[in-house]
């Protein structure tokens, strides 16, 4: 079966086409003909389908295209401009994707939420349009569930604790009886948002991504400065950390403007007291990633799991992956992460999660193909898992 996936919850426009391959004889897959789709479909919110667990899917990625709206250094991506970007590019991307995958589509999947309203709406309109044009079913997909399912399939991790970290979300998730349950999350801003905004403060380039550039700078950092450490049980917060590191950045920039260097005592000697932008990036990364690993470990201890899956844009960060690996190793477990093709928002994950739901008999009625900025991960009924 074949699905088109459209993603646009933030500044990436993603178009992907995924194929779920026919079952191997030992794992018969229900086909669309054997499981008649209900005559009246329900919305994602009030979904009450019978569980219809699917075996781990064999997938083929037929197209995975992304176009990112890159805002100038020092600025963030505003909803209006981002939506304009998505509208400008969506037809071109879909055409190109279809060229790469000419085979017949079964459904059109799009991101229903959570995310920024205007970009979500722009892509929802595109999804409705092509679905209407081609006479296809539409499947509204929860963005977070898209990340989780893609990550699980790509890494073949069966039942991991999921750390979902991006510009908009920070959650620790574990699966239990047909829901992805949120064990811990940020109490204020997302970790990626904290990194992005710090990049703006220091005028670090947004190309290809602010977090990537912070990571490169952090590799040259040596000195760890004192930041707040805000972990509360399995929850955490980043607002206070951002405020503190922004103050440090302001100090550093003022010192540089005055033609000098910023010195903070405690580095053991004249030159070692000097704090650089690299040190600030290093400090920020070491602190926030330690927090993320800590709450992940707590969740693992809580449910007795030893697999961790990192998804979301921040999940590309190699230092985070390394730290998570050290933690998992000390617990006799392992960490699963994907590269930027799947970590960063993409259409494939929407197509994949949408197709999983579609195969259990789910689709979204045309009048329900809206989008929503708030859409919790645990609202989705996960009928395709045991």
């Amino acid at each position: 079966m074949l699905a088109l996936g459209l993603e646009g919850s933030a500044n990436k426009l993603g178009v992907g086409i995924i194929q779920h391959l026919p079952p191997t004889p030992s794992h018969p897959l229900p086909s669309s003909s054997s499981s008649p789709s209900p005559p009246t479909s329900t919305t994602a919110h009030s979904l009450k389908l019978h569980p219809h667990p699917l075996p781990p899917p064999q997938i083929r990625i037929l197209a995975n295209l992304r176009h990112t709206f890159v805002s100038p250094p020092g600025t963030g991506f505003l909803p209006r401009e981002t939506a304009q970007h998505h509208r400008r590019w969506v037809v071109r991307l879909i055409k190109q994707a279809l060229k790469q995958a000419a085979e017949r589509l079964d459904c059109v999947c799009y991101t229903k939420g959570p995310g920024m309203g205007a970009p979500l709406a722009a892509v929802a309109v595109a999804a409705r349009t092509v679905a209407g044009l081609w006479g296809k079913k539409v499947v509204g997909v929860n963005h977070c569930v898209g990340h989780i399912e893609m990550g699980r399939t790509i890494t073949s991790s069966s039942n991991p604790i999921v750390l979902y970290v991006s510009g908009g979300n920070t959650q620790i998730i574990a699966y239990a009886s047909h829901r992805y349950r949120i064990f811990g999350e940020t109490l204020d801003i997302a970790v990626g948002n904290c990194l992005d905004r710090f990049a703006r403060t220091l005028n670090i380039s947004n190309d290809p991504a602010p977090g990537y550039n912070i990571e490169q700078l952090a590799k040259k950092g040596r000195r760890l400065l004192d930041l707040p450490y805000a972990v509360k049980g399995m929850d955490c917060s980043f607002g206070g950390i951002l405020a503190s590191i922004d103050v440090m950045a302001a100090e550093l920039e003022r010192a540089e403007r005055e033609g000098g260097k910023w010195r903070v005592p405690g580095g053991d000697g004249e030159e070692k007291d000097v704090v650089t932008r690299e040190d600030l990036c290093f400090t920020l990364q070491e602190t926030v990633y330690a927090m993320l690993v800590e709450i992940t470990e707590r969740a693992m201890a809580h449910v007795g799991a030893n697999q961790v899956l990192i998804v979301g844009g921040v999940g590309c960060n190699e230092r985070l992956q390394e730290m998570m690996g050290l933690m998992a190793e000390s617990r006799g477990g392992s960490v699963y992460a994907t590269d930027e093709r799947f970590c960063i928002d993409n259409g494939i994950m929407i197509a994949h999660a949408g197709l999983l739901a579609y195969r259990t008999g789910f689709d979204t009625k045309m009048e329900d193909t809206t989008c929503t900025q708030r859409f919790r991960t645990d609202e989705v009924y996960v009928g395709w898992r045991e």
Partner: protein
Amino acid sequence: MMPAQPSIQVSLPPPFNSHSVHDQSKTPTLLTQGAEALVFRTTFLTPSTPCALKYRPSKPYRHPILDKGLTRQRILAEARVLVRCRKEGVRVPAVLAADWEAGWLLLEWIPGWTIRRCLDAFLTPEDTESPSHRNDDNPRAAELKDLMRRIGLTVAHLHSIGVIHGDLTTNQQLPTSLAGTITLIDFGLAVQTTQDEDKAVDLYVLERAFAATHPAAEELFRGVLEAYGGAYNGGRQALKRLEDVRLRGRKRSMIG
């Protein structure tokens, strides 16, 4: 107590790591392995004084400076809260010794059952036809009700001195006997605050823990709250806040 999971790396900090035949104290035995602390049973000073050793091993993933700072901060926070509670007469394990450089805390050994075990014992009816807790004439039902009341009073006492447990579950309270004093344990996530919100979340976590323990336990929990509300000045206000916390389920609504 949860059974200790098979562990990959179990090490002991000094001085507990160098055992010789001359030492009469027993080799510490691992009881629980949480996310950040290992709890062992061992002895303090003499072989006849049992105690709990709570060890926070260094985390290999953390920057050494950050690691040292956090370990120190958490051991001290826990020890300070415990000492504070003892001074104010709240029953908690006494702090016997601490070494925040090596990462350990020695605590008084508290014998007894967890509340969870008490509930399980009470609420598992021996005769299936009439569960004992339903029968108000049953002396056990009265005893159980009194246990709820005492849990409420104990938590109220803790909150009244400005301490929030932070991880209040039915595994964290030990009555020395069914009618005895309740001792609160595991203050690893405790904070000192007088905010209604924090108190309410503390109660909410306990409520969820009750609900998860036994279906009938949820009903019993009302007795806990009743006793709590009347026990100190801020009690009613905290209960009011608990209603808000219940509605939003502790979690915020999610913005993409």
